């Protein structure tokens, strides 16, 4: 390998050369287990990737702490990294470093196309119910004549809203 090649060689023998970019590309193909239209990279839950001596370290944070998809995501990441010929060290980070603001623009568009209203931006002040009762846009017809039906939905990350224009209930990603 030439001296101008910045790609890091991993291990010896049969092992493939894995770069940080390869890992990000592989992780970007893992769908969210509960909302498969969006990848875990679009979701913003992969906080960092490092490659050192044949081991890929991934720092990852759950959306909601009781999310049962957590273990599924971890296993999927380990499997994808194994396919790249490296071993995985997945570190789960539990702090306030993830927000729904970290969902990528592409991810938000994918959510909308699948009938989920994307989350509203995080606000600096205390979150109040009245802010959530205001008219968010319906992902089906675009109307803002929508109301909050239930703060809680089929998974911890979603609320239920109702569109008074097209008379469809729809799900909205909660702001975290």
């Amino acid at each position, binding site marked *: 390998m030439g001296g101008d090649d910045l790609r890091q060689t991993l291990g010896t023998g049969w092992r493939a050369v894995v770069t940080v970019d390869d890992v990000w590309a592989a992780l970007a193909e893992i769908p969210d287990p509960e909302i498969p239209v969006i990848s875990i990279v679009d979701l913003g839950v992969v906080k960092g990737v490092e490659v050192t001596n044949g081991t890929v370290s991934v720092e990852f944070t759950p959306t909601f702490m009781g999310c049962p998809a957590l273990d599924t995501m971890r296993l999927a990441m380990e499997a994808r990294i194994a396919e790249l010929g490296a071993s995985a060290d997945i570190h789960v980070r539990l*702090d*306030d470093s993830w927000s729904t603001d970290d969902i990528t623009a592409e991810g938000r568009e994918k959510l909308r196309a699948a009938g989920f209203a994307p989350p509203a931006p995080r606000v600096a002040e205390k*979150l*109040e119910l009245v802010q959530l009762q205001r008219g968010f846009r319906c992902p089906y017809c675009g109307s803002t004549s929508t109301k909050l039906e239930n703060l809680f939905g089929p998974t911890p990350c979603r609320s239920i809203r109702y569109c008074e224009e097209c008379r469809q209930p729809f799900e909205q990603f909660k702001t975290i």
Partner: protein
Amino acid sequence: MSDRTDLLLAIADDELILGWRNSEWTGIAPFLEEDVAFSSIAQNEIGHARALYELAAAELGTTADELAFDREPGEYRSAPLVELRRLEWARTIARHWLYETADEIRLAALKASDDPEIAGLAAKMDREEAYHRMHAEMWVDRLLATEEGSERLQEAVDELWPYALGVLDDELRPELVARAQEKLERALADVEPVPRGVHEAELAELWEEMTSARRSAPAGAQW
């Protein structure tokens, strides 16, 4: 056991037991929205318990599951408020609101902790708890808006008040008193708190059910 572990277990036990109590509404709440709400809240609380147990387990050299399920009922550090079985709506809402209010005060103190793991975890929990608080307050407002609802809620709050005070340490209690009185626009009785460590008989019943699947399997079973 360090003070840190003791604190982590107390909060984890509160969240696990209350999560279990909230899940008792799954399928039988007064209407579908509340079925979904209490089930989702239960899931969040048990998720918080898991994270808190994991921090404690790292220090004790055990696992979150062992802490959650392999202790005897007498070893739990939960506050009696969360142990009570209250399958009646006004009492459920009163407990929900009193607990979430106390929890907000406790989390605010933990977020200011100089222990980065505890402060970080408290900040993440607080983002989720904000939804529980909005839900609890919406229901308190709804019940206070009618004569019968108000009467039943106020009666339930009075019954549960000594238990609610028992969730918090001495220094955080005055804030709970202030917030609860402000919301209800009346004075609450100056009573002795029901302390942690003295368990309600209902905890043993809950424990029997909660741990039955795990106890039925041979030691070392993989789930």
